């Protein structure tokens, strides 16, 4: 593993030589394997364009844009871009310092469409404006909100009440269309409380007859301040919050966060913990896909499949409950391993599930895959080309349905995924039907991974023996002075993560789930930015809708699997 990293790093091009002269003020190699470039604001677009267009660099995927506030630094803010190349094995982190009194940036929207909502979020949370952005307004907080919540001087408990429903109405929705058929034209509001929006999404569409001609999304109805809350808690205490990001597959989020902090600490969980994490993550992926497909099919009128998918989910919940104590939000992962070992009948339970789940997947397959009604409603609906999907920053099953075989588990294996044999299902048409097929096949592939992991489940401890990170065993705390001291220190001071930053990414159920973590060397995270896969996917939704009908909009929405907890955080 180490050998392969050094090998690939020698092949890696030196970005400083390929980028415009003098544009990069500093270039270094981050501890997480990213090339970290510091760029002056005036040359930013030049650098970003070169990163995307130079064939040696070929960075086609903009993953994340976020702000970080350093009140004691001058300039105060830093805007951080995370950029990756799908063809080459390299990733860049571009940092741009911005002063408080002149907090404007050029928008990267003209280079990557994915910048759209990420820039709006940085504006909302830090008050940094992006010149040239097509629609720069608040995205997560509401219309009556004052200030910028993720600035360090913003009080975490300071609320602003939205007393009446001054809900967002896009300017185009109130204008009379100029064309002759304006009598046929109307504006329709979907959500936020609508059975087909699965939570808290709101979509405003303009209809011409029955065809959608324009659409806009409003999100933030479930913005519960994950990032601000994580800054006020200890490192270990963040894990319950991560569970509530994508609550359909909470284990994956907790594991992703634990891996990110472990990366910064330079430790690794013991093999048994890694194998259990893989098994429970893959079971969570199956649950997530089951909810997504079940709910999507309900919206299309196929209620039976919802019951079929919920039955194996209950069984998986049973396993999670016996391991962690919680059904849905498990909080089972810990930095350095797991909270405690699995129950003695774990292996038997997993083997039972391996027998039990395929029956339900097959039942749905038989009912749906060749079902004429479903195919008529999903084939050719919501088509997204591979180029568009990459431009929007899509990852995960939705990207693979458009024909791009990118899966973090294969491209950048973590937690021993390189030891397991599995395929990455890819479809080519990029429509709602393709997304259904990819998710169905991924459930089978997850079962394959679980089978291999349970066959080779190692013994041993499930948490690291590094006492800077994990509590010593209780019996030692009662009998040994040193263990008692470690216990006391860890409880009193918490884990101390060395100062620095890292971006860690895993394959969530919806795509690349990234955590960008900044530590100032204390017992609390300085800044945690989650890169939620849904966020990038959902920003393309209004653009996909144009030319479709309202029932198609519902079918497409279900197939994208937008989880509000992760979207709004």
């Amino acid at each position, binding site marked *: 593993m180490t050998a392969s990293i050094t090998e690939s790093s020698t092949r890696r091009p030196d970005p400083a030589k390929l980028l415009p002269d003098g544009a990069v003020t500093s270039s270094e190699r981050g501890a997480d394997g990213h090339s970290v470039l510091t760029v002056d604001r005036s040359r930013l677009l030049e650098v970003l364009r070169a990163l995307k267009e130079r064939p040696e660099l070929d960075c086609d995927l903009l993953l994340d844009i976020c702000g970080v506030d350093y009140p004691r630094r001058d300039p105060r803010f830093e805007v951080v871009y995370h950029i990756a190349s799908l063809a080459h094995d390299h990733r860049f982190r571009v940092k741009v310092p911005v002063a408080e009194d002149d907090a404007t940036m050029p928008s990267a929207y003209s280079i990557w469409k994915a910048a759209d909502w990420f820039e709006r979020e940085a504006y909302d949370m830090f008050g940094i404006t992006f010149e040239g952005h097509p629609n720069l307004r608040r995205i997560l*907080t509401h219309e009556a909100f004052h200030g910028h*919540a993720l600035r360090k001087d913003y009080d*975490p408990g300071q609320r602003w009440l939205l007393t009446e429903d001054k809900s967002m109405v896009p300017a185009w929705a109130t204008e009379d269309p100029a064309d002759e058929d304006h009598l046929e034209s109307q504006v329709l509001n979907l959500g*936020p*409380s609508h059975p087909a929006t699965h939570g808290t999404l709101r979509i405003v569409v303009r209809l011409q007859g029955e065809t959608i001609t324009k659409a806009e999304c409003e999100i933030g*109805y479930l913005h519960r301040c994950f990032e601000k809350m994580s800054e006020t808690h200890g490192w270990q205490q963040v894990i319950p919050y991560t569970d509530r990001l994508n609550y359909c597959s909470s284990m994956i989020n907790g594991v992703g966060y634990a891996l990110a902090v472990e990366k910064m600490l330079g430790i690794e969980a013991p093999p048994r913990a890694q194998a259990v994490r893989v098994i429970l993550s893959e079971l969570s992926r199956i649950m997530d896909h089951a909810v997504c497909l079940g709910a999507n099919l309900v919206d299309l009128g196929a209620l039976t499949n919802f019951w079929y998918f*919920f039955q194996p989910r209950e069984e998986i919940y049973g396993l999670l409950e016996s391991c962690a104590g919680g059904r849905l939000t498990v909080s089972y992962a810990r930095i350095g391993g797991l909270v405690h070992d699995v129950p003695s009948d774990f292996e038997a339970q997993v083997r039972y599930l391996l027998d039990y789940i395929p029956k339900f997947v097959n039942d749905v397959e038989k009912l749906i895959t060749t079902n004429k009604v479903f195919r008529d409603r999903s084939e050719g609906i919501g088509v997204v080309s591979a180029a568009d999907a990459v431009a929007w920053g899509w990852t995960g099953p939705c990207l693979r349905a458009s024909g791009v075989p990118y899966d973090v588990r294969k491209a950048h294996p973590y937690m021993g995924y390189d030891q397991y044999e599995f395929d990455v299902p890819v479809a080519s048409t990029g429509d709602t039907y393709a997304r259904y097929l990819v998710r169905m096949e991924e459930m089978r592939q997850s079962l394959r991974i679980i089978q291999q992991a349970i066959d080779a489940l190692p013994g041993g401890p499930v948490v690291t023996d590094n006492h800077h990170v994990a509590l010593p065993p209780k019996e030692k705390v009662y009998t040994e002075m040193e263990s008692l001291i470690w216990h006391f220190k860890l409880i009193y001071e918490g884990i101390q993560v060395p100062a620095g930053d890292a971006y860690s990414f895993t394959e969530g159920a919806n795509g690349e789930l990234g955590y960008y973590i900044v530590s100032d060397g204390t017992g609390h995270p300085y800044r945690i930015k989650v890169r939620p896969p849904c966020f990038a996917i959902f920003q393309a939704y209004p653009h996909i809708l144009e030319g479709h009908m309202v029932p198609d909009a519902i079918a497409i929405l279900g197939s994208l699997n937008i989880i*509000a907890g992760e979207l709004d955080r």
Partner: protein
Amino acid sequence: MRQPDGSSSLLTTRVDAMLRWVRKNSLWPLPFGTACCAIEFMSVVSAHYDLARFGAEVVRFSPRQSDLMIVAGTITDKMAPVVKRIYDQMAEPKYVISMGACACTGGFYRAYHVVQGVDEFIPVDVYVPGCPPTPEALMHGVLKLQEMIQNGETQHDRFNHRELDTTA
């Protein structure tokens, strides 16, 4: 009442007791689901737990057709006016179950965008704790509400006691 065999039997009750009995056994929930709790609510109504056993399985997403609002999930300041409007649109008598720590108190989101308990702006009959509550806990909440309806202890009864006295 005449029985099939020709004999007759009589059941005497008060009108309001009769009404309460009818109401408690045919609750039509409107799930105002926003977050994790909504996923657990789906478990409660699906086959394994089957809320139909308590007469409350007719889930309606229209406030006009439902009399029990189950607030399942975190309510943010942005969402609060929507919850209020949907509650106002429900016809009387109406009941509210606050499902989960977030809807009850804001939960562990003591934060700038989260309502610290949905009872800030709508009356709540039953608070179900848990993050999220287990399906059993929510069913216990529904049973508790049925008991309260039967005994005339709901928020609706508190605000409308005079009307009930005249119908008695």
